[in-house]
């Protein structure tokens, strides 16, 4: 019983608390900021408390019955707890960074409310074990991200926000049709019941419909272009959207549905890697040509998401483990990159990397943090990204997908090249714009923390990898 309340608290502390933040600002702005951080951070702490339980092989299930199969069901298993820890950790750091970043702008109440609500609904999505509940939380994240992208009220920005909203909601509606398709086969939306009722692989049309939703949320080709456009948002938001939470929703739901709940027809084990590979390469190419700092990093996210999809779609132990570690490593590193980009952009007021240069002299900490995170994304040891990349490749070769594996290898080459292009142009080459000072201490602290976490997650890989091993074992035990 105790753990049931824990799961409810993880979801509803931020969801409900978010709406009290505007009230908190009446007390003082500082109080509101700290309250926002506490709400998000408490999710993280409470998620950590679930780790011992799930490691011992137990799960938490909380159910309230409703009519028509719309049961309110929350399930905390290894996969969910892993995802919850990763997203709430990164969100906490991002909220911390926002203290410095957002303090110059108006509508801060809206900002904090939306960010916390976003994280809360993400938590709800992670733990929900009912397709309709999952869909509900999914749409709440879409609405909050729509507000956050359009945070600066210029016309052009609003249009970009609308674009991302339309694309992801279109995908979500298609996915909903897929869910209904499943309902027609089984008579329930409850994932655990579906797992026992559906012995055969689900129909190809249902997979296709659900996949449209997942790909549009995870910004994968051909539904990806809203993500670079979302770069108009305030930087912590892009970081939050891209790296930690939003794009990971898609891959998480992919794992939740297609690894744990349904069985995929065989053809998708080849088709999804092909989609993922195309997405990884096209986005990496775009990252090499683009000159806008945040757009480059956004394209890089699309490219890396391809690796995660690939790992999950392979469906073998190594691939899934690689993809899970990838979610963690990429989340940390990419959040770091975005926050560094935010510092550079806010201080120089320049987005075009060809007009920047030489910033390592005046911003050494930001530069080093950027480099550390970049190394992790490239997969250079001793940074964390090395292990996730290796495991994905190992999974590919175990499945004997040598050709698609080589395409991803090429994608990894491009990753090294475009990240160095960015780093050199922004931090090393000759200064083309006046050199500016470092950002406020709290912002520097956040990026340095993310850089160091990228390093330590590689050196102390045994801790996350132990958790991942257990998760993979659990997935293998429920998958047929």
């Amino acid at each position, binding site marked *: 019983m105790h753990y049931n309340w824990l799961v409810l608290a993880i979801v509803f502390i931020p969801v409900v608390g978010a709406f009290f933040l505007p009230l908190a600002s009446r007390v003082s702005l500082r109080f509101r900021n700290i309250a926002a951080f506490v709400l998000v951070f408490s999710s993280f702490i409470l998620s950590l408390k679930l780790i011992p339980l799930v490691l011992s092989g137990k799960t938490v299930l909380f159910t309230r019955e409703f009519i028509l199969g719309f049961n309110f069901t929350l399930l905390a298993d290894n996969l969910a707890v892993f995802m919850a820890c990763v997203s709430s950790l990164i969100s906490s750091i991002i909220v911390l960074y926002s203290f410095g970043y957002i303090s110059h702008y108006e509508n801060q109440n809206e900002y904090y409310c939306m960010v916390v609500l976003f994280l809360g609904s993400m938590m709800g999505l992670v733990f929900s074990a009912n397709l309709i509940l999952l869909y509900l939380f999914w749409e709440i994240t879409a609405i909050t991200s729509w507000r956050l992208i359009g945070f600066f009220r210029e016309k052009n920005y609003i249009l970009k926000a609308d674009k991302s909203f339309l694309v992801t909601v279109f995908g979500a509606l298609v996915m909903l049709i897929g869910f209904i398709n499943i309902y027609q086969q089984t008579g329930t939306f409850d994932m655990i019941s579906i797992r026992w009722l559906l012995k055969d692989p689900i129909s190809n049309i249902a997979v296709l419909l659900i996949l449209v939703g997942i790909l549009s949320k995870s910004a994968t080709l051909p539904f990806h272009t*809203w993500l670079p456009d979302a770069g108009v948002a305030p930087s912590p938001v892009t970081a939050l959207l891209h790296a930690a939470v939003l794009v990971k929703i898609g891959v998480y739901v992919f794992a939740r549905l297609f690894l744990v709940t349904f069985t995929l027809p065989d053809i998708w084990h080849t088709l999804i890697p092909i989609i993922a590979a195309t997405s990884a390469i096209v986005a990496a190419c775009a990252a090499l040509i683009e000159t806008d700092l945040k757009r480059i990093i956004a394209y890089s996210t699309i490219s890396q998401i391809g690796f995660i999809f690939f790992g999950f779609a392979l469906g073998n132990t190594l691939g899934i483990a690689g993809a899970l570690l990838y979610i963690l490593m990429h989340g940390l590193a990419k959040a770091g990159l975005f926050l560094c980009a935010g510092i550079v952009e806010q201080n120089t007021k320049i987005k075009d990397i060809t007009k920047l240069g030489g910033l390592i002299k005046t911003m050494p900490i930001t530069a080093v943090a950027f480099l550390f995170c970049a190394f992790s994304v490239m997969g250079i040891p001793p940074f964390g990204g090395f292990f996730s990349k290796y495991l994905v490749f190992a999974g590919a070769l175990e499945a004997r997908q040598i050709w698609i594996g080589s395409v991803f290898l090429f994608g990894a080459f491009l990753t090294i090249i475009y990240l160095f292009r960015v780093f050199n142009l922004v931090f090393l080459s000759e200064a083309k714009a006046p050199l500016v000072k470092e950002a406020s201490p709290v912002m520097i602290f956040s990026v340095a923390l993310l850089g160091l976490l990228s390093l330590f997650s590689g050196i102390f890989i045994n801790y996350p990898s132990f958790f991942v091993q257990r998760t993979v074992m659990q997935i293998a035990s429920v998958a047929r």
Partner: protein
Amino acid sequence: MTDKILLLPIIIPLLGGLLALLTPKKSGALKEGISLIAVLLNLVVTFSLFKSNLYYALPWVGFGLEFSLRLYHFSAFIISASAFFGFLIMFYSVVFMRGKQFLNQFYAYFLITLAFINGAVLADNLVIMLFFWEGSLAALFGLIAIGGKGAFKTATKAFIILGITDLCMMFGIALTGQLAGTLTISNINLPLNLLGSLAFILLMVGAISKAGSMPFHSWIPDAAVDSPLPFMAFMPAALEKLLGIYLLTRISLDLFKLNPHTWISIMLMTIGSITIILAVMMALIQKDYKKLLSYHAISQVGYMILGIGTALPVGIIGGLFHMVNNALYKSCLFLTGGAVEKEAGSTDLAKLGGLRKNMPITFVCFAVAALAISGVPPFNGFFSKELIYDGALERGWIFYLAAIVGSFLTAASFLKLGHAAFLGKISDENKNVKEAPLAMLLPMIVIALTCIIFGVFNILPIKNFIQPILGEARLGGHNFYGLPTNIFLVVVTLIVLAAALLNHLFGVKRYGSGLKAVDHIHYAPGLSWIYNKAEGRFFDPYEIGLNLVNVISRVGYGIDRGIDWIYDKFTVNLTLALTGGIRKLHTGNFSVYLAWSLLGMFFVILFLLRSI
């Protein structure tokens, strides 16, 4: 418990490096002190472990990625050699680097590199090896980038080339692990079938690019110009060769069953031969002391790869012995280059000359190392080259020809270098140049003496270090030390060396200067055009690769923009077109709406009537 001692060669330099990085700027010689203590301790530990066989393992990542280290005669030999070079070059750097920028970083990266290389050599798990192997990249980037203003470009070039080849190796390791069912190096022994060959090639790409072979070489000459000089003596000249050739030997002898009948063997020998010839051709025409040496650092790898590629015991022994010898004389040569740079202020050969009197000890060390690299008896290079010739000739005259032509050009270019730097007339501004300080001379002298000892008493390294690597079974009772057995090869070598000397004398007589002694080759018809292009980086595989990537990414970007057009323009316009017609019906006119409603009602009634 004693097996934990295996962690020391990794921990000592790593800790030293971190401490050196964190020492305050104003603490005097503290960082130098820390660094010297770290390399000394490392030397003591590796030497004291030399004869031991140790194994240390602890679980780490899971999925077969066990943190296992293994010390046996081969790995002990390599880490002792790296410790030897690490100590001497650090000793040298303390004086050489004095007064330069970013000293903390220099010492830190130097030591961290040493730690990672020790880790890579000791590792008994392929992924752990890669972890250390690829992990040294970040330090390498730093070491080159601190060299000067534009040095970061070279650092990036090195990083991209090595990073990409290391990713190939990652792929190869994953494949090897799948084929063998284990990642523990000492348990793997795979046949070279189709997938096996692919795995071999991927691992080989990593190994030879670390060693600096073509086509992964092009950052080395750039680094010679940009990076701090001790880096060149430390990494491309010594440690990277040791590491790369170590891995190449491991994969050829242990991980895969390489034998002379495989096409892999032919491929290795071809890469080796091409590297020898092309790199030495480039070395020949260089006008800068360090850059000339850097091309030799590439060319000499060719001999090692050729030797190992023969897959014959004599060739492999020769290749390994050459690896040791090359590390010795090449680092010695770079150190003499550093002494010249420090004292005369330049390494441009046009500004040097006649330094023999001012820097006699440097000159003698240079002469010993130059004779050794040219393969003159009784220096060490002669013996290893003879072994490689022996193996190459057995596999095909064309490979032998490449090796021997390479030797001719090597000798010619060192005659040119020595003549231009140390002989001839001294320029006025160099009149007061002094001999380098003792701390810089000592490492050179030690290494030069080792070159002589390893030549005259070659039984010492070959019998104790190198023959055990192959093992009794492969050797079949043969011994490869002592004087060369094939008199024909020796005679040819001597003729070629004499020809190189004559060629030099001819060039000097014709153009009147040591520097221009090979101009008749440089500006030979046809060759001069190729040289011109090569100097303009026309053939640089890195540049070609980047251009190719650029073209590909433009295509990819086009696809991306096309998709975006569908969202931003096509969908919007389509919607507008579709709704446009309907919008026209909504005129705002009441009578029109009434007409529509009546029409609708009419259809409803029609429908209802029909359904009755």
